[in-house]
């Protein structure tokens, strides 16, 4: 589970192979793109050659051969147009394949993640996981679009320029290629330093964003405690550090970049000197030398870009490996290959020697053996961290036990098809998460075929029609981003109705009404009790009133089921439950 935010240790090549397998469109007839590009590139070499030919042969002291100049120029123009057409064809193909293929990859990664339990188990990692389908893919996209193009275009250009040089004059070519290789190696070495600097930049940028984010999102606190000046000071420091680091890194890169000019000049001078020293007797004519000056110029720029692109390539490679790493995760919750249907009717639950721990973590639940009879109302209590929420998650198969087995209706949960399970068993988590949209949209989320009337009926059944009417738009009230227009308690009400409308055979509530006022809490519980009569319900309770009303209470402490039985019995026993209950009574007694 630790591999979700870190870059997995696989080679970039393996990552590319895997990505091509998942999104074959990415690599579709890549050779054709390279070929078309090479044709486009060829033009940039052919034209200088034609110009050289013309200058050399037709613009002599003896006179000018106008027809020949015109023929060659016309030929060059035709070549140019052809080259432009083929370069465009290549680029358009690449644009379509890359964006389509990467979209496929994004969807696959999202599909994998949304089914994985890492999202709710390690909620603090959600941000990092979102970047698997956003910024990581964007980096790859930008690389294929820009870096990849530079790679293909410049690589081709370098090859063609070198070939042309060799064909002209191999000794001069050797000089140029040798010098370029040495220069590229030096640049690569500096590139590594630059890369480290970029890492530092990324860190200070992230810091400055965090500090600015705090200033804005923490504004109520900043205002309430009058710490505007302190906050501004922090913002200033973070931004100062950021601009300084960004500038230093850029200045280093600039110095590096400018050396290219001196190198190119040195190389040009070298070519002139060596060319002249070799002289016409060795086949170096004025035309050859002038052509070489063009070709050197043609070579420097792409080599420089190629080196610059390398760190971009590294980032894209790391992004790709992280994305592929998600695809390679094993599913914590695996769909059964041979699913068994749940028996019809009311469902009971059995926990058989269940132990649970998060990977690499301590045990959260140990030795849980319990049977919940069909049709019974069970309350689960315990302090924060006692394992009661984990119990609920195991019960609805948000998690699988490390040891032991959970059975519903006598069937091992691991053999029940997901769709079957979700249809029969409703789980209402504490968070009361709402999606952007109306109240009706949110209620229908789990049960899309519900009519307006059914939605309204569900509210009436739970006695929430009065609340619904108090909203400005009734069922059509917009809840805002993550339900932000409603209070925490109101969000829980909608989440409860949402689960309720699917008429489940087993209802599991995890502190689903923790944020509503006591009178409403009692009213809701009574409604649910009345409506679920004959069905099984398991309620994780923050308020012990629920436990008092239950047929049976399960008491958890430090990951163990320590007591179970009906409320009066447990109170009499004078154990863990009795003391929890005493605190509760002391808290609720008005007298």
């Amino acid at each position, binding site marked *: 589970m630790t591999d979700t935010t870190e870059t997995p240790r696989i080679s970039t090549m393996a990552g590319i192979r895997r990505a091509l397998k998942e999104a074959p469109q990415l690599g579709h007839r890549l050779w054709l793109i390279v070929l078309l590009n090479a044709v486009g590139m060829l033009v940039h070499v052919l034209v200088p050659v034609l110009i050289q030919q013309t200058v050399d042969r037709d613009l002599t002291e003896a006179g000018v051969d106008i027809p020949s100049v015109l023929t060659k120029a016309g030929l060059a123009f035709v070549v140019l147009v052809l080259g432009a057409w083929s370069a465009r064809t290549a680029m358009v193909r690449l644009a379509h394949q890359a964006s389509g293929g990467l979209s496929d990859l994004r969807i696959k990664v999202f599909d994998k993640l949304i089914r994985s339990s890492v999202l709710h188990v390690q909620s603090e990692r959600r941000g990092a996981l979102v970047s698997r389908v956003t910024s990581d893919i964007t980096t790859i996209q930008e690389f294929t679009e820009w870096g990849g193009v530079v790679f293909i275009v410049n690589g081709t250009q370098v090859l063609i320029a070198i070939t042309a040089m060799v064909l002209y004059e191999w000794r001069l070519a050797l000089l140029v290629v040798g010098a370029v290789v040495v220069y590229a190696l030096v640049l690569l070495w500096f590139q590594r330093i630059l890369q480290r600097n970029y890492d530092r930049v990324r860190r200070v940028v992230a810091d400055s964003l*965090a500090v600015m984010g705090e200033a804005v999102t923490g504004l109520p606190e900043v205002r309430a405690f009058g710490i*505007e000046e302190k906050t501004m000071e922090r913002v200033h420091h973070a931004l100062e550090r950021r601009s300084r680091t960004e500038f230093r890194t850029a200045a280093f890169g600039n110095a590096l970049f400018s050396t290219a000019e001196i190198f190119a000049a040195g190389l040009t001078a070298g070519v002139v000197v060596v060319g002249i020293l070799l002289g016409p007797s060795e086949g170096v004519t004025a035309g050859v030398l002038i052509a070489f000056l063009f070709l050197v110029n043609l070579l420097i720029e792409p080599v420089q870009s190629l080196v610059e692109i390398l760190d971009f390539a590294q980032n894209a490679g790391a992004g790709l490996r992280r994305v592929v790493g998600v695809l390679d995760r094993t599913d914590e919750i695996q769909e059964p290959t041979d699913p068994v249907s749940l028996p019809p009717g009311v469902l009971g639950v059995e926990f058989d020697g269940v132990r649970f721990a998060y990977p690499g973590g301590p045990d959260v639940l140990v030795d849980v053996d319990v049977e919940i009879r069909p049709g019974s109302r069970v309350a689960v209590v315990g302090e924060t961290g006692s394992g009661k929420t984990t119990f609920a998650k195991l019960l609805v198969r948000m998690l699988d036990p490390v040891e032991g087995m959970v059975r519903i209706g006598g069937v091992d949960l691991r053999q029940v098809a997901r769709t079957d399970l979700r249809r029969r068993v409703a789980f209402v988590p504490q968070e009361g998460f709402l999606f952007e949209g109306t109240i009706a949209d949110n209620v229908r989320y789990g049960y899309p075929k519900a009519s307006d009337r059914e939605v309204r009926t569900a509210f009436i059944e739970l006695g929430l029609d009065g609340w619904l009417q108090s909203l400005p738009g009734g069922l059509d009230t917009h809840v805002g981003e993550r339900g932000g227009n409603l209070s925490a308690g109101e969000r829980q009400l909608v989440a409860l109705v949402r689960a309720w409308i699917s008429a489940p055979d087993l209802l599991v509530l995890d502190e689903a009404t923790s944020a509503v006022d006591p009178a409403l809490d009692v009213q809701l519980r009574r409604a649910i009790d009345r409506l679920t009569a004959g069905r099984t319900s398991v309620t994780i309770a923050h308020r012990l*009133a629920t436990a008092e009303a239950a047929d049976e209470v399960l008491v958890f402490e430090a990951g163990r089921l320590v007591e179970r039985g009906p409320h009066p019995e447990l109170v009499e026993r004078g154990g863990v439950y009795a003391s929890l209950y005493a605190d509760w009574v002391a808290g609720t007694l008005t007298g």
Partner: protein
Amino acid sequence: MATPTAPVSARAVVGEGLRLVGGFARARPVPFVLAVLGAALFAGAIIAASQVIGWVTDSVIVPVLSGGEPREGKLAPAVLAIVGVAVWKAAAIVLRRDAAGYLQFKTQQDVRERLIEHQLGLSLSWFARQSMGDLLAIADNDARQATGVLAPFPYASGVSLLIVGTVVLMFFIDFWVGLVALLGMALVVFIEVRAAVTVYPAWEGIQRQTGRVSSVAHESFDGALTVKALGREDYEVERLRTESEDLAHRIAATNSLWETYRVIITALMPTISLAVLVVGAIRVDAGAVTAGDVVSGLYLLGLLAFPVQLIAFVLFDMAASIPAHRRVTSVLEVDEVVEYGSERAAADSGPAPVAGDRVTFGYEPETVVLDDVVLDIPAGRTVAVVGPTGSGKSTLTMLLARLWDPGSGRIRIDGRDLRSFARYELPREVAFVSQNSFLFDDTVAGNITLGAEYREEAIVEAAMMAGAHDFITELPNGYDTRIGERGAALSGGQRQRIALARALIRRPRVLILDDATSAVDPSIEAQILRRLKSADLPSTVILVAYRPSSIRLADEVIYIEEGRVAAQGTHEELMQSQPGYARLVRAYEEDAAERSQSSR
């Protein structure tokens, strides 16, 4: 926040873009002038380089290789000239890029600081209408984009000089050659402008769509538990697929368009060279120019091939900077600032009485949350604010801490209107703790002191009273443990207790707790309340509560129903006179009683 779209006409882009650059340049003239100077030196160096190549061709290469002249004494000056010009060019590059980079980074910093500083003074009613994500995007992305034109601008002005210089030189070589170059370059610039202006809006569409993909992913991942509880994974995947495929289509279409322009430009430059060659050949034939003149002209054009492509990028950056800058400005122009008076705080002068005088409030003009609320809380009292879900309790506490201002009426502390306090003064008398207090990315101690000077014992004492000391000492570095995104993960109850300590250490004259212990386990909460009761706080305490145990801590209860104060009095009095109150407070008790009756 409305997203203004890019201006579509090229004139608007250039005009507004230049005004924008001018504004930034005036704020930091020195780096701007240096950058432009560097660009001019750079342009000069490129022209000089072409002259050098022409000169080397004419007086060294051709005479020696074709004319058979001796090479002695010719090589050294050639090498010196080539390398000398390169050093000049390299120095110009460093000057231009360093100065432009400095200008850009510093201007970004200026814009961000102005944004944050301005926002720190704005009223929460304005924030309530914004999305935090948008505001952060403005401080981050838009600040970058608005200043993005600064880095390439000097280069672009250099390239423009270069183009002008090239054309002028070509005219010096020959009128007809110059004319061909002029027409060719004019065509290139025209196409570059069209490219930037047509591609920019499409690119903006890509940005928006990327935002949509990201918000679907965020929403699905945040609601993952709900998605799975309801078995709607497939639906979420389809939702993402729709947005992702739309994004892919946009990217493909936009890139195809951009590549088409690019290919045209890259083919156009050699075409101009060919035209110059043909015209040059005719002029050489006529004896008007030498072959060397034509070669140096061609070389000059060759040098332009790459930089000329940058014009489109700069125009593109300009097109992007304009709407980004507008979004920045739209925040800076918000005038809903909190107004302050001149009253100084009278800290440490014991508990203060709190009074509310016909206070009315609504988050939006048409909805009334608080209606004609009258409060009279004597100094030193502990008062519980009780009411059903959605009755306006939290809103009232926020008004008491002046996080919002009443629509009408006034709130007074010790006789002074909250609005009469000078900035930073009111928090010295009033401390406020909400249900979801924000913890900063700082140490535990830093989150308690919030940067003010306190003795270590005071910190520990406050933490103890808030029931936080025990778990803090169990953290890896105790009070120096970092919390927040990259620090220790704390439970909701633990966070609430740190926030409570933050308020207690200030020994405020008025302490406001808005359900501040809702996530704390009941037994720990009971302890905290007992400590608060026995501690001799120099404070008037106002707390929003549900639990009778918390209510019992209070001397008095204010019962709120539908935004009005239904009654104020002791718990016993309200139990008698207010059936709604009694029902709310006794809900569990009655529930238990009924059950035991029915089971009997």
